[in-house]
């Protein structure tokens, strides 16, 4: 006997609705978690934030004053690691995607990049201490910290570049070669401009990641308390994530630093958020300029 079509229809409708409801619920849960975290930090941190908090040195055992040196320190570290990681990462991403055929070299590079990305950040910290701080005698310094953070973010930069280039249809490259363009000309004039919006987005997101990392700077640059600004790349600096850790766990008076801690957290979150928004804006700007559609 044939099954009743109306019944089948009802059953199909039911499973449709169930799955749809489940997916909606899960997505909503994720948004909710984000809203709760952000809300929590904003509510607790906002009262701490004022002009002095952003521009003054920490005072009175880090229970009062501001976080200016930590903001400057984080800024220095982000800049330093960008200078180091972006050129190297972008070039090696171009190499992997444009200059190697599918084969052992490409596989090796990919495996290595993936493994590098999988190393825990505290291990990068230890390595940075061994190599940059002690081995090369940079000491605890912006230079050592930037190099360590740069290493950490390198695989992200390589992968971002590689994936962005991979997304460019081969017909554009072929079309360029057919006009007598060299490989370099093709990459520079056709492939890279097309891939740029995605590369930039990836890079800015990686900056967000650098600015929040604590473990790699722990042994390489971060100062517990240093109420002055750095003068050279061989100076130590305070940094936002480490400062947050310090005043939450081992400050002179943890209870009275609590307000400062939430304020610091809020500043850190706002910096990352601003970078993400910037990534979106730049992506849209370049997207329009390159006219991909």
């Amino acid at each position: 006997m044939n099954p009743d079509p109306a019944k089948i229809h009802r059953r199909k409708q039911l499973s449709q609705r169930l799955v749809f409801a489940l997916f909606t619920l899960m997505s909503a849960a994720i948004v909710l978690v984000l809203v709760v975290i952000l809300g929590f930090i904003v509510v607790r941190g906002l009262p701490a934030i004022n002009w002095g908090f952003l521009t003054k040195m920490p005072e009175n055992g880090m229970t009062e004053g501001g976080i200016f040196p930590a903001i400057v320190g984080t800024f220095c570290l982000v800049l330093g690691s960008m200078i180091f990681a972006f050129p190297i990462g972008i070039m090696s991403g171009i190499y992997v995607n444009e200059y190697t055929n599918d084969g052992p070299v490409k596989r090796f590079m990919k495996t290595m990049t993936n493994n590098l990305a999988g190393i825990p950040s505290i291990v990068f910290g230890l390595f940075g201490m061994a190599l940059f701080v002690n081995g090369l005698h940079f000491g605890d310094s912006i230079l050592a910290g930037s190099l360590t953070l740069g290493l950490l973010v390198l695989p992200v930069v390589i992968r971002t570049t590689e994936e962005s280039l991979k997304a460019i249809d081969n017909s554009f490259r072929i079309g360029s070669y057919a006009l007598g363009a060299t490989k370099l000309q093709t990459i520079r004039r056709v492939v890279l401009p097309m891939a740029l919006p995605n590369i930039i987005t990836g890079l800015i997101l990686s900056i967000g990641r650098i600015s929040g990392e604590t473990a790699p700077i722990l042994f390489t640059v971060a100062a517990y308390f240093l109420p002055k600004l750095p003068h050279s790349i061989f100076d130590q600096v305070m940094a936002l994530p480490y400062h947050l850790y310090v005043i939450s766990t081992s400050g002179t008076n943890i209870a009275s630093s609590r307000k400062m801690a939430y304020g610091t957290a809020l500043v850190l979150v706002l910096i990352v958020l601003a970078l993400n928004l910037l990534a979106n804006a730049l992506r849209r700007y370049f997207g329009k300029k390159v006219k991909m559609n």
Partner: protein
Amino acid sequence: MAKDYVKKPKVMAKEVNLYYGDFHALKGITLSMEENHVVALIGPSGCGKSTFLRCFNRMNDLIPNTKVTGLVMVDGKDINDRGMNVDQLRKNIGMVFQKPNPFPKSIFENVAYGLRVNGVSDAKFIAERVERSLVQSALWEEVKDKLKKSAFELSGGQQQRLCIARALAIEPSIVLMDEPASALDPISTAKIEELIYELKSQYTIIIVTHNMQQAGRVSDKTAFFYMGELIEYDDTKIIFTNPKNTRTQNYVTGRFG
């Protein structure tokens, strides 16, 4: 001095074999083409006609694990010779692809691209050449007021004519066309065919096509490929009315393929 009654061949292939890894894609192809002729390459999918087309500007180099033996001569020069400058060769041999592939640049920059990568920087010269190429490809009237607009704003047929203009801008002597109209509507196709007819006086054109009527309409000579072999090569009129080989006859009359 006695006059040469047989023109020197513009393009010549002799005993060309091509392998993709273990796959023997072209089997001992020998044929030659005269200057200012249109030669159509026809045959069922996978017969090697597009592969053969790519032999003339060494685009097969870009496919890994490819090996070519035999001789391919363009203007009397062995193009697979070690000393051959491939970029220079490709500048001299324009190519138009199956799917229009304009760059994500303005209409003007698309046509100027080939000049720029070949070291031309004189703005006036470039502007003149861009206009001339667009006129040649019968696109000028449609785009002259929006040269700065993105090439992606053009229709598929216009994009393909833009790609032809792009190829003509660097003044090649040979134009290779790989099913240039297969992704286009009938009106655009007719325009492309008309264009091929116009271009014949100045260029040697080799066109791969699946469309029998198209081959019949535009070409002087036709080569029929089957399973990597050149089955028959003759005047188009003969191929379509009185072919010597039965396989050719079956194919052109639509009995297989």
